[in-house]
């Protein structure tokens, strides 16, 4: 070992813990419970106290209250932390998370692309962040103009005549779209009962249809991963209200017969709802309006780079065809004599499906999405779609000799594999996903779509450089080769290098503990 003149070692001990050649294998626990940068962090309820506050609030002083005899006297129990402790608490928690900012996040159908910080900065301008939804509209003309601009971009990119911005997330957008369909059918006195969804549909599609009072019937896929057009036509009768199809679909494939599908749907007097979750693949390249779509939601948090935030808030605007636009929800922006206004209650034709949210939707997300659109421009948006599709096909081409691609290429923005290549290895899709965590990646979407066994759905997005793609592919090939060679040790207990080992979901569900409770006194 080399040392400086004070006897301080200047180089680490040779060898490593992982290959067992080091003598530094930890055989002890720290006294603190921390493990270096992996810091143990209790719950705020174990850290703070109800007598502590990290905010300097003025005292109200003595005054006569006007709340009758309804003062809250019993302890609430919420702990406070001094500001430095609160900052540390949440900083420490954050370090247990994986985000796009840390590395490749190839979660299929979720479009985990870079979240530009310009968007964040723009959304925080006081003129957007600090305005109230019920201010006089004369005092929020810039906000309404922004909503108009965003609507123009969305309508232009989708080739659709109208958009409702207010749905709060993708599933909320689906609800909006299917409700508009039902409202349109009822307006023409046409009671229909059935919504058709492909087997590969995301779970929200059938859940939404049921929410709107429809029975759900499944339509099968063909061997090439597309909707079986003949089976669809067979199922289309005058009881069918709508067909809900994701395009590009959840297998990462474009529905080649989409125009035949829309023609057949319209011929049967039904509507074509398109789930736009995968619009990232075709933005600027093709317009749903040209393909016969009647309603489609967009996920601003997927396609237009607003952050996923660890599970929302999302934003799910819905575009409508001419046949449906009069049924769009309230409120919407109108324009007369140079001034914009909000139409908040029943409209002239009285056909709106009604209000879906307390106010005007996710303004904070509108600002971020428009910031993304203006930055890219229509040329950059088309380039982004092309790069997303290119990256996915590069994954497909680089892995299909060793992993089992479910369908032939080309794919769109995501590549679908199944677990056929793992047959008889004892390694499952779940094991494979957890081993990806050890490689430093967020796993791909697993076990979805349901139409292939042990699905692995990989969506790299346009965010990844060729260098990142090559690194990722090297890891994936390494894992696949190891599994196929029967070397299963690295899969069985994976993840080994994550801060937590596999968590017991069965125990969590069997006896749910959904909140903190203080320890019983005798256990203290």
């Amino acid at each position, binding site marked *: 070992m080399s040392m400086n003149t004070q006897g301080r070692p200047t180089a680490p001990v040779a060898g490593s813990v992982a290959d067992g050649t080091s003598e530094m294998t930890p055989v002890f626990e720290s006294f603190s419970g921390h493990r270096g940068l992996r810091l143990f962090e209790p719950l705020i309820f174990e850290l703070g106290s109800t007598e502590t506050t990290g905010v300097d609030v003025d005292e109200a002083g003595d005054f006569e209250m006007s709340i009758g005899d309804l003062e809250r006297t019993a302890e609430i129990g919420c702990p406070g932390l001094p500001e430095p402790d609160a900052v540390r608490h949440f900083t420490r928690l954050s370090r247990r998370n994986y985000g796009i900012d840390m590395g490749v996040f190839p979660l299929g159908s979720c479009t985990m692309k870079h979240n530009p910080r310009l968007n964040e900065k723009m959304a925080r301008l006081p003129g957007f962040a600090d305005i109230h939804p019920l201010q006089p509209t004369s005092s929020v003309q810039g906000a309404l103009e922004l909503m108009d601009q965003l609507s123009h971009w969305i309508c232009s990119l989708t080739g659709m005549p109208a958009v409702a911005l207010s749905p709060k997330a993708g599933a909320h957008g689906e609800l909006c779209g299917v409700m508009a369909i039902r409202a349109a059918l009822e307006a023409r006195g046409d009671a229909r009962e059935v919504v058709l969804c492909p087997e590969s549909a995301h779970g929200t599609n059938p859940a939404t249809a049921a929410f709107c009072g429809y029975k759900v019937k499944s339509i099968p896929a063909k061997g090439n991963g597309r909707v079986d057009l003949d089976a669809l036509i067979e199922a289309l009768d005058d009881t069918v209200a709508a067909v809900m199809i994701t395009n590009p679909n959840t297998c990462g494939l474009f529905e080649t017969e989409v125009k035949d599908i829309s023609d057949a749907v319209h011929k049967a007097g039904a509507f074509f709802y398109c789930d736009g979750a995968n619009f990232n693949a075709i933005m600027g390249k093709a317009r749903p309006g040209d393909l016969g779509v009647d309603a489609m939601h967009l996920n601003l948090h997927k396609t237009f780079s607003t952050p996923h935030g660890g599970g929302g808030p999302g934003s799910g605007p819905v575009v409508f065809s001419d046949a449906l636009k009069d049924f769009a929800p309230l409120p919407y922006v109108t324009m007369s004599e140079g001034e914009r206004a909000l139409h908040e209650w029943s409209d002239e034709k009285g056909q709106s499906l*009604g209000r879906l949210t*307390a106010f005007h939707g996710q303004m904070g997300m509108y600002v971020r999405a428009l910031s993304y659109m203006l930055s890219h*421009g229509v040329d950059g948006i088309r380039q982004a779609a092309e790069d997303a599709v290119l990256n996915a096909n590069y994954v497909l081409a680089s892995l299909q000799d060793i992993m089992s691609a479910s369908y032939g290429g080309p794919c769109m923005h995501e590549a679908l594999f199944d677990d056929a290549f793992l047959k008889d290895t004892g390694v499952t899709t779940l094991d494979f996903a957890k081993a990806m965590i050890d490689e430093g990646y967020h796993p791909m979407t697993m076990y979805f779509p349901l139409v292939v066994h042990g699905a692995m759905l990989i969506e790299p997005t346009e965010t990844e450089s060729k260098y990142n793609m090559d690194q990722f592919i090297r890891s994936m090939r390494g894992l696949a080769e190891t599994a196929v060679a029967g070397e299963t040790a690295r899969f069985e207990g994976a993840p080994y290098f994550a801060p937590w080992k596999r968590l017991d979901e069965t*125990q969590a569900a069997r006896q749910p503990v959904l909140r*903190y409770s203080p320890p019983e006194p005798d256990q203290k």
Partner: protein
Amino acid sequence: MRYLPLTSDDRQAMLAKIGVRHIDDLFKDVPKADLNPEINLPKRQSEMAVERQLSTLAAKNTSAGSVPFFVGAGAYKHHVPATVDHMIQRGEFLTAYTPYQPEIAQGTLQYLFEFQTLVAQLTGMDVANASMYDGSTATAEAVMMARRVTRKKRAVIAGSVHAHYRAVVETTTQFTDDNIVCQAPNPADAGAELQAALDAIDDTTSCVVVQNPGINGSVLDLGPVAEAAHAHKALLIVVVTEVMSLGLIKSPGEMGADIVVGEGQSIGNGLNFGGPYLGLFATNQKYVRQMPGRLCGKTVDAEGEQGFVLTLSTREQHIRREKATSNICTNSGLCSLAFTVHMSLLGEKGLRQLARVNHKRACDLRDALTAAGFEVLNSSFFNEITVRLSKGATDVVETLAADGVLAGVPMERLYPGQGFDDHLILAATETVTDEDIAVLVSKLTEAVQ
């Protein structure tokens, strides 16, 4: 384009690896006639240019912090400590996905567990979910949950419930055979308004929905309506649009609520022109499996270390599909983090102090308005009151806005054509100063002359 890392050389090399010549060979499944349409939109711009363009739009709006501000009615201007925004902008929180891979998402999962506990404590209920879109959609979900629990279809919506919340319940249930009975607000007599809801409960009633503080700001004891509901095997759903009030007013749980829904925006979240906001949803243990939305639960990992996972997902759409309790597929993750950070700073002590300051400001406002001869309709309230003016409130508010004061919400905007055109709802939070109140009262006095 600054967000796109691939170079032209990269693209060529990758196309070669794939075995095609041109990028459009990868789009061969798109009908040829529809590929690469002419789209008339602007081209890419620099960061500076985009910033300039959006800042111009922002500058056309009057921000709440720049004027005397009294607008409430479901969204409230509060001071949010700087720490909150810094924490939620950490990339590990901001750019994470739903925590479906719990080994690398314990940060999100732990704060969701903390959030659920805080919401349960504040509302006085056993359990809360990981949040919903906003208070209005949480209310609609609660009505549908009451139907599942009671197997009855008649929901009574009291006059105290925000007009927009009512509308969302009606929209959401319009294609089911629910019977939604909406009552009119009674700003002059909040007691009678609540009694009307109580009187409307019968054996076919699944739930009665009341808001506290009500849309007009009044605070009431919900004990009697809870008793009446339970006597008819109906659930009491309490809506709280101003969650700050729970630091001063007895909790809905203490008053007998079965489900508490609310808008959590007031804690940790800005006004944002109405969204994103934070739907709160809490209930009692026995109804957990009928709850909509995500739930985070405690467990252990393979080495016995405590950790958290999303749980009870057999209620949810990705497992149950058309039989799910709701079609909801997300929560308001980052908004619930903002709420949790702000609550961790406040603690019970800070929350109680802040709630008292809010009430004090509203009392000051009430006193100043009464002294100037205005008719304040509330006898009990938290931080919001309703005033009957001698002329139309919409015009008055417009006049004051032009004069640099945002004076409140005309009731006519929420209840058009229902006889409330001279009613004005005003909120006073800790952000309101004595000077703001003086300016408001003087300009209001001028405007009604």
